[in-house]
């Protein structure tokens, strides 16, 4: 009878038992990536692209679109939760690694440690940009007090991110052979350098940013794709333009993505959760839009336009004076083969093209050089999109180049969860968004911004979920304005 009382768990395993073998450790590393699935199925887009001048929404009434987020906002809470879930899993791998004595290959061990550190840095980089200084948890959580820690400063978080990325770039392989635990699609040392370049860019550490980007660019196995759509349509996944992607596959909702439906209009079974900002709407559609609409930002002849945008093909009944087919939705991720929310297309997190723009931006900030390397980098992107190269005549000084670079970045990376962070780090979020908020007579909440301690820029922060202050007495102060 005693045996009845001690059944062995089936299909699940005690953690202590799992983390004693290489195989178990590899499955634990795989789990570190899994929060990416939910983060990039819409929630991060809501906090970034919707909160930027690129996107607007028509239905939800409490979205960041008009910056009326409060400290119980469920989307920022979900993002916070998913990011820390990834960190906990990375910490568990790192804390338990030493318990595994035998590895099939030293490279496997290094790759495991490198991936855990890379992912921890990736998650903290998102946390610090959304929420500012956050609790810096670096150990496995064994009791509730392990999770109850005070907020670190923004500087402290970046010290940790850089340290993890240093380790990761040293530990991670340049490429993966493809066997179990070493599958293609895991971050390489180049991905670590690429992420490092983004961190430096955020902190306006131009020289380091340029150098890290250069390390990636100089890898000749990487390059741009002639067809912009192939970056998103599943045809070139983990290919030579890819540095880091959210990997989707399989057939069920658990491992596929609904981002296709997130952007698609209801007539195509989507949610049209974010629509492209459009000057033609003049604020008349659902919520705010326009004044600096993305739809109008494309230059004539830009081959990316029809990939990013698609029109409804309808008469513009909002304003009959506007031409037919002037209402648009985001088409970039719309997977026509998978209209039911089970798309297997990967979501790009860092692409080769961004590295060109990072280095171009950093070089220009270091010093404007007419027809210098920065021009070449910018024009590589433009020529690939069917546009003409920018000349010194068009961009005679640093400021003009900066504007052109920022515009190119906006188009090339639109709806890839970049724009909000860019506007924020450039300190121009308020200016860009206020144009749209004017339509509703609303003011950008400047009381919810800080002066960034490293760059000194005006920096908008999301609230730390209010429930955390109840469940963690050590946490400290809420972000200002909430």
């Amino acid at each position, binding site marked *: 009878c005693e045996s009845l009382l001690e059944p062995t768990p089936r299909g699940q395993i005690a953690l202590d038992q799992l983390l004693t073998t290489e195989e178990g450790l590899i499955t634990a590393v795989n789990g570190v*990536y899994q929060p990416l699935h939910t983060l990039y199925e819409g929630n991060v887009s809501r906090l970034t692209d919707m909160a930027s001048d690129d996107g607007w929404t028509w239905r939800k009434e409490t979205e960041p679109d008009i910056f009326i987020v409060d400290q119980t906002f*469920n989307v920022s809470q979900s993002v916070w939760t998913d990011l820390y879930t990834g960190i*906990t899993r990375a910490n568990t791998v790192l804390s338990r690694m030493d318990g595994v004595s035998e590895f099939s290959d030293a490279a496997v061990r290094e790759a495991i440690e490198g991936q855990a550190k890379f992912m921890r840095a990736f998650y903290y980089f998102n946390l610090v940009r959304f929420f500012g200084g956050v609790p810096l948890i670096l150990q496995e959580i064994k009791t509730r007090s392990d999770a109850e820690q005070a907020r670190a400063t923004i500087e402290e978080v970046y010290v940790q991110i850089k340290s993890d990325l240093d380790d990761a770039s040293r530990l991670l392989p340049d490429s993966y052979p493809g066997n179990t635990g070493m599958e*293609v699609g895991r971050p390489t040392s180049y991905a670590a350098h690429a992420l490092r370049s983004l961190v430096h860019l955020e902190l306006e550490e131009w020289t380091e940013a340029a150098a890290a980007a250069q390390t990636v660019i100089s890898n000749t196995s990487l390059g741009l794709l002639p067809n912009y759509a192939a970056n998103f349509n599943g045809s070139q996944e983990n290919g030579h333009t890819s540095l880091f992607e959210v990997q989707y596959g399989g057939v069920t909702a*658990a*491992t596929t993505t609904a981002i296709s439906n997130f952007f698609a*209009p*209801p007539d195509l079974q989507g949610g049209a959760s974010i629509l492209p900002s459009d000057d033609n709407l003049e604020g008349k*559609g659902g919520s705010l839009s326009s004044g600096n609409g993305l739809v109008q930002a494309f230059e004539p002849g830009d081959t990316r336009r029809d990939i990013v945008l698609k029109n409804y093909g309808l008469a513009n009944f909002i304003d009959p004076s506007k031409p037919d087919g002037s209402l648009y939705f985001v088409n970039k991720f719309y997977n026509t083969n998978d209209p039911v929310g089970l798309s297997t297309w990967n979501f790009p997190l860092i692409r080769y093209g961004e590295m060109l723009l990072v280095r171009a931006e950093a070089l220009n900030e270091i010093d404007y050089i007419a027809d210098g390397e920065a021009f070449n980098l910018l024009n590589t992107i433009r020529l690939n999109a069917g546009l003409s190269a920018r000349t010194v005549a068009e961009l005679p000084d640093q400021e003009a180049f900066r504007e052109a670079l920022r515009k190119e970045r906006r188009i090339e990376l639109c709806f890839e969860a970049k724009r909000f962070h860019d506007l924020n780090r450039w300190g121009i979020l308020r200016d860009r968004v206020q144009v749209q908020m004017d339509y509703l007579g609303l003011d950008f909440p400047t009381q919810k911004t800080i002066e960034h301690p490293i760059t000194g820029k005006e920096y908008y922060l999301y609230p730390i979920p209010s429930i955390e202050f109840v469940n963690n*007495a050590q946490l400290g102060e809420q972000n200002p304005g909430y």
Partner: protein
Amino acid sequence: HVFGQRITLHERAVTLEYVLKEIEKQSNYTFFYNKKEFVDFGPVTVSVKNHPIHDALEKVFGDKPYVFNVTGNVVVLRRTKETKDEEKPMLRKPETNQRDIRGKVVDSLGNPLEGVSVLVKGTSRGSATDSDGRYYILAQTGEVLTFRNVGFLVQEVVISEGQMSVDVILHPEFSDLDEVVVVGYGTQRKADITGSVATVSENVIQSRPVSSFQDALQGRASGVQVRQGGGDLSGKFSISIRGIGSVTGSNDPLIVVDNVPLFSADFSTINPKDIVSIDILKDASATAIYGSRAANGVIIITTRKGQAGGSQFVFNTDIGVENITRMYDVMSTEQQRLLFVEAFKNSGRDISVYEDLAHPAWQVDTDWQDLGTQTGSRQNYNLGFSGGTEKTQYAGSASYLDRTGTLINSNLKSWSLRVNLNSKINDWLRLSTNLTGSHQRQNVLNNDSWGSEGFRSLVYQHSFTEPYDEAGNLTAINTTAAPYFGANENPLINVLLPTRNDNVTRILGNTKIDIDVAKGLVISGNIGGDIVLGDNYVYLPVYQIGLFSRDEGSVTVPNNQQINWISDLTLNYEQKTGRHNFKGLLGFSAQQFLTKNNSVTGTGTIDNALDQLSNQTNFNATGSEVRAGLVSTFVRFNYDYGGKYLLTATVRRDGSSKFGADRRYGIFPSGSVAWRISQEDFLKDAPFINDLKLRVSYGLTGNQNIGDFAFITRAGAAPYVFGNSVVVGNVPQNIGNPNLQWEANKQLDAGIDVSVLDGRFHATVDYYHKQSEDLLVSTPIPLTSGVRQDPIINQGSVKNTGVELALGGNVLTGTVSWASEFNISFNKNRVIDIGNNSIGQPLEIPGESIPLSNQPTNLTRAGNSAAAFYMYQYIGVWQLGEEEEADRWSDAVPGDPRYADLNGNGVFDVGDKTFVGTPHPRFFGGFNNTFAFRNVSLSIFLDYAGGYQVYNTARNLFSRGVPFVQNFAEVADFWTPENPSNTVPRPSQGGNTTTLATMVSTRFLEDADFLRIKDVRISYELPSRLLTDKFLKALRFTISGTNLYTFTKYEGLNPEASSRISLLSAGIDYTPYPQSRLISLGLSATF
């Protein structure tokens, strides 16, 4: 009746009484005799084997001065006064003034009563009625005839001069003190019960067409709240006994069917037609025998057993139609258009399209609720049979149920077969077995995450969209752009095109062996099992409807198994010594549960004819298996002194796999005493009172429903992908707590049972005080912990106190009879303490958030009832002239909703939330009245509940004045400067007004008090004289109406709706499968 029954006796020096009892046990004979005449009879030693009764009795009496007279199955014994040979059995010569009296005995409905014993008072002359109720007896003028029959009042008639016939109507005896009540691992006479036990009889259970036993139980027993929250055709009921004892654990009572404690919560496959009684154990004295699973009460279901005697067949059928009792009153297209105009004006947007009356959208007015619903039907056929001999009895049934739902494309079919066999193998060995097999097939609708079963989509969609094109094909909207018109799908696509089957196959049964080891000592072994196999099938087809398309089909085949085995060994000992009666029970039990879930999904077919897994090209599979076990020892001791002072003591020790090695065992003791005052000398002969009993009990029971393996830190699945291949991921999913132990429930119960006027009226009152301690609370930890499950710890307590009253009686008897049963229960629930959070404040556990507002409606906090409603208080609409205050308060403008500033800080913030109600009724109960006149009876059953609220989520979503979804008609009266409504705020689309209008507030919290005409039934029993055909013994026709009308102020579809299973989110109405009204015709034939 079986004549020529044979008797076997091997007794040495026992009392006459014992011998006679033994004969009664082995046969159908009943003895009548005057005890005083037999006081000096002396010990009996007898040995007969398989002898007829005459021979056996000759042996017993030998040549002692006694005579016996066998008539039918009645044996009358008498001492001879004169010479012993004066009266030989059966050879008495009539005295001169004696004559043959004849007559007929019938019941109050005029049905003949068979086997009624007829005695001439003070003599040994006796007789019994035949199957026509007729009898003959020798008697003389002035003598008294006594008529007795079990379950009827004794009737005496004095024979008058010249009278030759005496016809008698026997009236039922109401006292149920000798009724047997099923308690755990045994039965007890109702009179001897010391705990609080309610019984629902077969009559009540079978009185109307029901979908499950929970349905039959609703309103019938005090202290038992059955709430039908909605659900699909298989029903979605929750049962709670004496309030809510557990906050995060389960509050479901333990259900035991024929000695098998169930594990699966799927009850719809238990055929209610097979049930003969439901006994509800409420206080700790009654439940403690089930130890760690008893804290929420125990419901014991007993199924039909065979009876010795001729075989009997009963055929029952009912056929009925069902309609939805209530639908939502939604806006017309024109009203919706005006709403758009006003909302967009208020939100500062262009309104030209909405003012264009020629726009095609405004020409359509579709009633989606009508299109998606239909008149449902219900047919049930049930054939039951029973019979047997002295040695072996059997019973069985075959049943078929076919229901068509009130939502289109939903239906249910159910088949069940059952057999029961009881056999007396020999003098010391008895065997009984029950076995039921059932199969249920159901077509269900899409279940959204809030369990609305597809109905909500019919409410949500705009009326200005078309369901079908000119050719009659389903259509989808492609003439308007959704961001400008809102929700424009065709809900019928999802209702009609996919296939969703839920199939359940169940085998439930047990086999029990009783061995008489020695006098008074019985050893019993019981093996039982409950196997529930679910196989479901979902096919999402390929289609292209307008712009709506699915290019690839998908098949999902989930399978689940719930296998539950139990084996019990019990020893029962019974001894009577003078006025001291002892009963003891010692038992051992081991039970194992296995839950296995597998699901395979395949996609890729492009042809709807190829809709099986093998036709797909891409696959995904998941699976899990969990085992759990329970090993127990239990002891019960009953003692009574002269039936006057009664005592019960119970202890159970449970070992459970749900807890770590150090906390695995729990001990659950209880004790109770009762005093039957009516047995005291000063009341014994009181003509008025026939039972008066005081009871007090106290005990400890447990709750272990917390899921499996919560005590260890587990790695859970977290699959990821590389390339397009899914890889296994494993991640920590909880923080294990090795110190986890049982929830303890301490309950005090004090009760009084009264029965007066030969049991014609009875009443039971109970007071209870239940305190649950060491609650299994899942305590929130920071989200920074990165695990999805909050750790479960033992912390805090919840108190339930209450009073239950059950009254009943036969107000009128005779030709016109009226029986009435009433019960009411009051319960008060208080969370005493659930610990503190990290910052030292009392822990608060919020319920689930309501969509759109993303705010919870319920909050569990010490000092209030569990899951009490906690929200803003709606106090109307900001009016013109209040601009300044409104702006300061929350950037509001006139027309915006206004909430009370409860913390008085002049600003709208979370500090303005307050406790505003409770989802748990303060009182509830049922009231049944049955009237009978000759062969017609009418019964009216009401149930009710009061003192609680329900959160009308549908209004929170559809009465906000936000036009992108269809709005309810009430919104048409929205605020404008010209129509300064103080109830309906101004419409809006986005912005601050919308945010304010979406808030969870008392605006959508409604009193849900209700009184429902649950069932009205008229039945007609064909008079037996019309049943000339011997084949047919009885025939009854019934017409009944269920859920005929509900008196309530609640504006939703059903004041009992509660969409969430979790207690923490109780009382949220999220538009479940609508309640329906059933009108049915029934027929019952016995042959």
